[in-house]
């Protein structure tokens, strides 16, 4: 308790004067535990701790036995049995030691109150003078003040040292370049079924059906998963009357068959929950909802841009093909997109 503080700002009932200072109430009277006063209780607590430690030993034994008794046979159930028993054994072994030690400390170890007074953070004058003298000695004995050649070369070396670290930041690249703005789609690439790459005829896309589409040749490309993450497309046929007219997208569909990017413009989850009756496409991650009948306008959720449409046509064999890449980069925003 600091002496200079007096309780003048403490609210008191009307008519009652506060004392100039409160007396230090001190530590409350020590309360003895039953294990302090009763030797039988102490004996019992001792046995309890021993039993808990024995449980830990049991856990270790369980681990050792199950390690040999339940080999991994390659089946899920054998892996499950093994991990369950190993985990239970090791968990019990570690937990029981902790519980036993805490129980031991709470019931049997001395619990008398101790007070350690705080001291000032600032050292004594003697210590401070001594520390300053040691620093001064070091300064003089190293000669850093006199030997300017050493001092300057050290400064020079130190100044150059951060440059390698800054240079190595360049290895965080390479920068994506235009990889994010282009996909495997180009004029004449067939729309094929995911995952078998079977081409799709326009007549097969019946009313109300949905095809999950990848570009032909995706599985043979250098990085199939990366390409799929950009080029995945959903193919949907709508009633011609249901679709809102958009003159600049004239001819991008084939008789009411529309192809839209499956990659959400929010953070890139596959938007694939299609409600046939409402024409709503729902993203499973953050519930962004796109209305296919309104050219995938966002009608709900955190996405900001509509899903890009892939312009499609039919080749001479009757299969659906793209007529170009997506007119805008598919998927979520990125730094260079602007």
């Amino acid at each position: 308790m600091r002496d200079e503080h007096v309780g003048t700002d403490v609210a008191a009932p009307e008519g009652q004067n506060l004392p100039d200072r409160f007396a230090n109430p001190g530590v409350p009277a020590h309360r003895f535990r039953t294990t302090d006063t009763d030797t039988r209780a102490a004996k019992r607590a001792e046995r309890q701790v021993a039993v808990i430690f024995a449980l830990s030993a049991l856990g270790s034994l369980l681990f050792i036995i199950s390690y040999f008794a339940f080999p991994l046979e390659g089946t899920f159930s054998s892996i499950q049995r093994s991990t369950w028993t190993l985990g239970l054994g090791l968990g019990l072994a570690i937990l029981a030691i902790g519980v036993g030690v805490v129980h031991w400390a709470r019931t049997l170890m001395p619990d008398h109150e101790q007070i350690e007074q705080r001291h000032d953070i600032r050292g004594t004058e003697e210590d401070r003078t001594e520390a300053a003298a040691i620093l001064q000695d070091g300064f003089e004995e190293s000669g850093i003040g006199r030997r300017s050649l050493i001092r300057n070369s050290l400064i020079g070396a130190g100044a150059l040292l951060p440059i390698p670290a800054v240079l190595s930041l360049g290895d965080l690249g390479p920068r994506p370049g235009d990889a994010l703005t282009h996909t495997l789609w180009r004029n004449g690439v067939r729309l094929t079924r995911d995952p078998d790459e079977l081409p799709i005829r326009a007549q097969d896309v019946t009313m109300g059906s949905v095809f999950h589409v990848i570009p032909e040749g995706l599985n043979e490309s250098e990085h199939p998963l990366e390409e799929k993450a950009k080029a995945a497309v959903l193919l949907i046929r709508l009633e011609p009357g249901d679709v809102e007219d958009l003159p600049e997208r004239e001819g991008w569909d084939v008789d009411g068959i529309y192809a839209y990017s499956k990659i959400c413009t929010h953070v890139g989850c596959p938007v694939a929950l299609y409600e046939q009756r409402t024409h709503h496409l729902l993203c499973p991650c953050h519930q962004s909802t796109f209305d296919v009948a309104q050219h995938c306008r966002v009608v709900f959720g955190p996405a900001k841009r509509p899903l890009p449409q892939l312009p499609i046509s039919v080749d001479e064999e009757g299969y659906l093909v793209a007529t170009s890449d997506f007119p805008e980069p598919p998927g979520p925003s990125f730094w260079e997109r602007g």
Partner: protein
Amino acid sequence: MATVVIMLIALVVVGGAYSALAPSRAEASTTASPEDVTAGRDLFLANCSNCHGLQGQGTEDAPTLIGVGAASVDFQVGTGRMPLQANSVQAPDRTEDFSQEEVSQMAAYVASLAPGPAIPAEEYTEIVEDPERVSKGNELFRTNCAMCHNVVGAGGALTRGKYAPQLRETDPKYVYEAMLTGPSNMPVFNDANISPEEKQDIASYLRHLKDNESPGGVELGSIGPVTEGAFAWIAGITILIGSAVWLTTRSS
């Protein structure tokens, strides 16, 4: 003359090649008898015509049944979705009102109105055990179904109270018919998109999930972070608070 002959040959070749190469349709070989159609019509008039119209032409309250096919009737009535329990965003499956025979009769009647998807043949609604085909079913399920129905068929929520039902207990025939007809808001997966064999693979994958315990231990409904997070918070934090209280209180 030669041109005509060449054209005829070309037509035969193209037609023959098409019928040989075109995706096969899995349709039941048994055809409904006229008695079934008559019996089905009576059942239809008594149970369905109130909403779907006396000729199944549809009304303000319900869509037309002309051309929906026998598969649609078998699915909707067979799973108890129809007759509709109440006016709601989505018909729930409930206990069935009709025997399979009565369902088949109604299906035969609706199929007689106009051609549509037929009830799949039994050879495609059986479960296959071949691991390669079950694995193929898993791949197709992940690509086409898992986003709504959850990757292990636990079902999931859609917009405005609609939902994709769980599929763990669903009869393979109804899995097949649902893909074929696209009930409610589910899209259609026709035979050109997912072939009859592939539909069979998907149903077999679902049965495989049902018959095999989850490799990941306790499933907690298989609905991902919601139940797992709730469990971690409630159980984990309770244990942490309990430990903290136990560590800091004095022994009696």
